[in-house]
């Protein structure tokens, strides 16, 4: 940890935002560590799940928003399942990621954020995920042109990847995406008065 993060602020802005948006109260956590013990990815994280929850309680918002942990979470729900205080820890990870993107904080694991964008772009455009299109979108964003090309070729040969997208449902999906965006923008404008947006 750096010196800066040891200064504990007097109130926890992020914890309040998490509570408001997901209904999850991180103050219920009593630091038993069960979430971290069961987490299959904690070995690769910079802060283990219970450390991240604790930092959120303490108001160390910058540490949480800039952690790798939120992006490396595999959404396996083991932590949520085992928490004796019924905190939906995987849900908190999702909410924090949503806030990072909304506040335009630079994601600390950009590749994962790029994957989300590429996948959602494909779903919005086609209605159903078009894997090849999504892979191209991901490579364009990460510039890792040759990652997984061998696997991609093997899957193409086995007929496991479609060469052309389906467009059934494209209009339905686009309508939903646009309405959600509109509603979320309205809410963000409403919340900016409450200090959610910095």
């Amino acid at each position, binding site marked *: 940890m750096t010196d800066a993060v040891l200064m504990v602020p007097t109130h926890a802005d992020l914890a309040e935002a998490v509570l408001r948006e997901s209904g999850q109260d991180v103050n219920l956590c009593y630091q038993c560590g069960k979430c971290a013990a069961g987490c299959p990815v904690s070995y690769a994280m910079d802060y283990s799940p219970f450390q991240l929850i604790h930092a959120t309680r303490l108001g160390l918002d910058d540490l949480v928003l800039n952690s790798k942990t939120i992006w490396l979470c595999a959404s*396996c729900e083991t932590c949520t399942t085992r928490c004796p205080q019924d905190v939906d820890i995987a849900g908190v990870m999702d909410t924090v990621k949503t806030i990072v993107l909304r506040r335009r904080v630079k994601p600390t694991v950009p590749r994962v954020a790029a994957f989300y964008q590429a996948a959602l772009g494909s779903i919005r455009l086609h209605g159903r995920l078009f894997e090849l299109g999504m892979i191209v979108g991901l490579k364009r964003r990460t510039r890792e042109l040759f990652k997984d090309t061998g696997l991609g070729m093997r899957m193409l040969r086995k007929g496991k990847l479609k060469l052309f997208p389906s467009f059934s449902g494209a209009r339905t999906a686009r309508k939903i995406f646009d309405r959600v965006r509109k509603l979320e923008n309205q809410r963000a404008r409403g919340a900016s008065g409450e200090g959610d947006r910095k």
Partner: protein
Amino acid sequence: MTTTYAYYPGCSLHSTAAEYDMSFRAVCDVLEVDLREVKGWICCGTSPAHSTSRLLSHALPMKNLSLAEQMGLTEVTAPCAACFARLRTSLYEAKRDPELHRQLQAVVDGPIPELVSVIHPLEILGALGPEIAEATTHDLSELAVVCYYGCLLTRPPKVMQFDECETPSSMDRLLGFLGIRTLDWSCKTDCCGGALAMTETDIMLKLTHDILEEARGVGADAIAVACPLCQANLDARQAEVEERYETRYGLPVLYFTQLMGLAFGISPKRLGLHKHLVGVDAVLESVAPVTEPARGAAYG
């Protein structure tokens, strides 16, 4: 008696997991389970949606459930564990959170379905023990299989209400109806890293390696799965894991519906077994027609 279900295949079953779709349909044909694909279905949004927008992550599944309801059907089946989890989660959250329910009404055309329920093929087929025993024409008792349930069928249990969350047994029981010997092992609900497969590949390789090690360790001839993401990691990425960890598994990874199809005497081609990246010859060699008195002995 024929039962009719709205069938939500999801994106994977139309592409990377076409063999899951083929084998599920083939097995349902035999057991007279009537599947009607949801007209105009769209992606459930999966992890990219729930990681970036709570509203979007529930709007996409809810739209599909609403489309199913418009077909006059109230039970929706989704074989992909990720789709199944997203559909069930959205129903749960919309019931629990009136504000979300209100927003969903504004985003999804048509009323929010109230009577629709989401059911997994393991639940549908698991209730057909006598019919399965009756339909079994081939003996697979030579095979020792581990059932891999993955994360999303059972977790979080409050929402999913599926089997026992840490040590599920529904797939073991179902394969037992076919006379398949399933082995106990400790990785039934471990995570394969599916959500990170395309991005943090090193993490995914480690998690998948741990699962393959355990499967080999208990002496499995094959792994049975119910999730396209698990299957893609364990099968399509198995060669990559072998290369990284300098080992060799050669473990076939089959959907439970493919094993059912083999026991029912359905051709491997119709079950999509030619689409696997790890060869399934060893499994096919152990399939033998049953003699009449032995039929159905496994059930009961």
